[in-house]
């Protein structure tokens, strides 16, 4: 098992949110970030899948349907490594609070559902430290699906899990795919010590709980900007 940032002895801390699309995790991490920033703390926020160079290959692969489960997994691992080595790790070493909207667990869940062996995927990402705190937003599958599907969005091929051949209907495929990912998350919950968040609660209730937990677990004063 990998070590957390604290266990590695770095001055920064890594906080991640995980959960299905529509679980409200992005809203919560945004509110957390605003709260920390306004206190004058050193905060950095990072999203999944955002490095420029790899993006060009990822979008080409998705557009032209070139990706298999293995190359899909590898290209996202490449993308993550780039972000980890060039952004996250230097900031963590420089004493930042790094907030991540999705972390390696997203890859573990998604790639395993696509058929990659769990140990292989975990091995790929073993260069990355584990978060000091991982919030898993557990909404009921139906609630998450409704939040995403109610306004009938255009679902991208891989987003809907269409490459798995679960259904020819993108919405039906998305439902089955998300259901399987949800199962993976639940299975990982104790393996990686997720902090469970009841995503069916009110936004404010959830945010209050996150702030309390963070204050209890991390000495925030240490992250104040020095002038």
């Amino acid at each position, binding site marked *: 098992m990998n070590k957390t940032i604290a266990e590695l002895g770095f001055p920064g801390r890594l906080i991640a949110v995980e959960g299905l699309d529509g679980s409200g995790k992005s809203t919560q991490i945004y509110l957390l970030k605003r709260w920390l920033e306004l206190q004058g703390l050193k905060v950095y926020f990072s999203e999944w899948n955002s490095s420029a*160079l*790899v993006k*060009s*290959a990822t979008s*080409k*692969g998705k557009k*032209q349907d*070139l*990706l*298999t*489960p*293995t*190359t899909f997994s*590898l*290209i996202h*691992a*490449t993308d993550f*490594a*780039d972000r*980890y*080595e*060039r952004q996250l790790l230097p900031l963590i070493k420089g004493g930042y609070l790094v907030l991540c909207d999705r972390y390696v667990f997203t890859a573990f869940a998604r790639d395993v559902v*696509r*058929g*990659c*062996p769990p*140990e*292989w995927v975990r*091995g*790929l990402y*073993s*260069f990355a430290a584990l978060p000091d705190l991982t919030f898993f937003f557990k909404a009921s599958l139906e609630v998450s699906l409704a939040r995403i599907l109610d306004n009938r969005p255009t679902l991208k091929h891989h987003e809907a899990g269409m490459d798995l051949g679960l259904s020819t209907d993108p919405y039906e495929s998305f439902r089955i795919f998300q259901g399987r990912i949800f199962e993976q998350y639940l299975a990982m919950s104790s393996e990686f010590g997720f902090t469970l968040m009841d995503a069916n609660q009110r936004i404010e209730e959830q945010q209050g709980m996150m702030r309390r937990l963070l204050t209890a677990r991390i000495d925030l004063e240490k992250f104040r900007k020095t002038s």
Partner: protein
Amino acid sequence: MNKIRPRSVRLPRLRTPESAVIVPKVTPKQWLGAGLPGVEASSLNGKLIVVEGADGSGRSTQIARLVQWLETSGHHTVTVGLKGSTLVSEELETAQQGNILSRTTLSLFYATDFADQLENNILPALRAGSMVLADRYIYTLMARDLVRGMNDAWLRNLYGIALVPDAVFYLDVAPEHLVQRVFAKQSQLDYWESGMDLGFSRDLYDSFLEYQARMRDRFRELQRSYPFHLINGERSPDLVAEDLRREVESVLSA
């Protein structure tokens, strides 16, 4: 040994060896580790032959000769190399030129390129029963990463997706000879082939010798875990070709 005569071709009175086409036996293939999800290794009828070695070790020459000989002997051959995938080859080139990626990222980028070619070029060709000649394979990628301090167990897991080749040849040439061959060919040393990213020396020549010596050491280490033929590449191309041909012949009739 099976000998099949093409029916439509009129045979010369004296049977020349060329008229007899050897049908290679199908030997079960294996993965190096976890393998690829959903791919059955036993359905692969062709042979995978890998030639490893530094630039200037004679790789291309030897592969060209193998292709010619194999085709003359009636085998369909497909040649693959590194950095040739549709998926990421362009991006990989850009990344290398800018030298902006850190080691894990570059390593995974190369692995993506390899996986894409494995699934889209190598496996289909093997399924169709072709002879696949790989101009470098995962061993070069692993050796490069090991020189750069990547973790051995991490690399083994990563390349567990690869197929175990039917034969691997490493064309061994001492760095001092290698440098002369590179000069004779292009009178200039390549940045990456000299390991300049590692900062051994700011002098290209010194860095080349140091880097290639380390690559050679890593290959010798890899040979302990992955059986391959160490070929003395300092001899004449004819002698090296003879060695390769003999070994490939034994693969075909194995």
